[in-house]
């Protein structure tokens, strides 16, 4: 028997992982694995029935998360995990649907879907792993790349203004907005746990190192160097005004939980409104009678 097959050598999270697909494809020093660890920890602590938790991801490095989690998982087209998750959740409101994808996927090509799902306060948890580039395809500039960073399609440095994701999420109507780096492992876990137990559109941005592309092109070192940068430059400011959360190139990263409010979800609004207008003729959907 191989050492790793012995019962005492089984990693405690193996029941949530597709062990037949390990080791995963992420690079040495990549932070996505850390976010997945934090997610599984949060899932275990939240007390949710894992059979009812679905993970939807798009295309990209973080998009591969669905392939490694042993839950009902969906690997969809680029930019479309959010509307896919919308359909999944609305068709069976008892499911807990988590969108777990990258910055390019969710707010780049998927930007339109993101703002509309937030506007409608869809009951989804969106975990956006932000590594400031389109890593899977070779490190192209993304909507979140800081000004001045060198990327493969911005070889002389990026000159476009990037998104401030918590501001975008809050402005679109998200009811839970938090940002952490992957170094804040326990806080990421707590945020995901809070989001899983909350109803409404929750958005958690987790900034992670991209060693092979973003860091290499910008001569920022390896995973350890980037984590040190997060350690020295991140500041926790819970409840900060999301307008002030821009990240400059190798600049200060403000992290924390910025928004945590209660608002009726899409289905709540739909059922309440139509019941009011149609009275007894209305057939409610997703409401336990």
């Amino acid at each position, binding site marked *: 028997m191989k050492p790793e097959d012995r019962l005492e050598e089984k990693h405690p999270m193996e029941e949530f992982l597709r062990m037949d697909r390990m080791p995963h494809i992420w690079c040495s020093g990549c932070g996505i694995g850390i976010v997945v660890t934090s997610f599984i920890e949060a899932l275990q602590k939240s007390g949710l029935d894992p059979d009812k938790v679905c993970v939807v991801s798009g295309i990209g490095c973080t998009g591969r998360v669905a392939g490694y989690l042993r839950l009902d998982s969906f690997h969809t087209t680029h930019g479309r995990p959010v509307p896919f998750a919308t359909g999944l959740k609305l068709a069976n409101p008892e499911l807990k649907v988590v969108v777990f994808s990258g910055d390019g996927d969710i707010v780049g090509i998927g930007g339109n879907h993101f703002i509309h799902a937030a506007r409608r306060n869809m009951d989804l948890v969106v975990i956006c792993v932000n590594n400031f580039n389109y890593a899977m395809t070779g490190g192209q500039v993304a909507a979140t790349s800081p000004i001045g960073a060198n990327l493969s399609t911005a070889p002389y440095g990026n000159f476009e203004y990037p998104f401030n994701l918590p501001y975008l999420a809050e402005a679109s109507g998200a009811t839970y907005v938090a940002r952490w780096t992957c*170094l804040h492992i326990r806080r990421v876990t707590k945020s995901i746990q809070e989001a899983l137990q909350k109803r409404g559109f929750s958005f958690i941005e987790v900034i992670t190192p991209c060693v092979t592309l973003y860091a290499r092109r910008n001569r920022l070192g390896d995973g350890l160097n980037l984590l040190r940068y997060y350690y020295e430059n991140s500041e926790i400011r819970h409840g900060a005004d999301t307008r002030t959360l821009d990240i400059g190139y190798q600049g200060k990263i403000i992290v924390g939980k910025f928004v945590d409010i209660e608002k009726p979800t899409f289905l709540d609004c739909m059922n309440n409104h139509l019941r009011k207008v149609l009275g007894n003729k209305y057939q409610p959907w997703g409401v336990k009678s």
Partner: protein
Amino acid sequence: MIYFGELKAKKGLIHINKDRCKGCGFCVEYCPRDVLEMSEEFNIKGYHPPRVINPDKCCYCQLCEAICPEFAIFVTLKEEEEREREKEISRP
């Protein structure tokens, strides 16, 4: 270590899956007790996995387990009897 009268500090036992490790060094860097260091051996993929150098110092904080991106390291709690047994063996 016993303090506040009755409380005993927890001790952890570290399990490393050497072949899954990708040598990123996060566990070594962020262990608060310097329990680990990178070894010189190569695993099946050519990476240097970590090894335990101060097993007694491990206090079961599980930070290495939480920060490892590869699910290659985890910590289990050393039970009371095991610790007594260890003390017995180390007694001259």
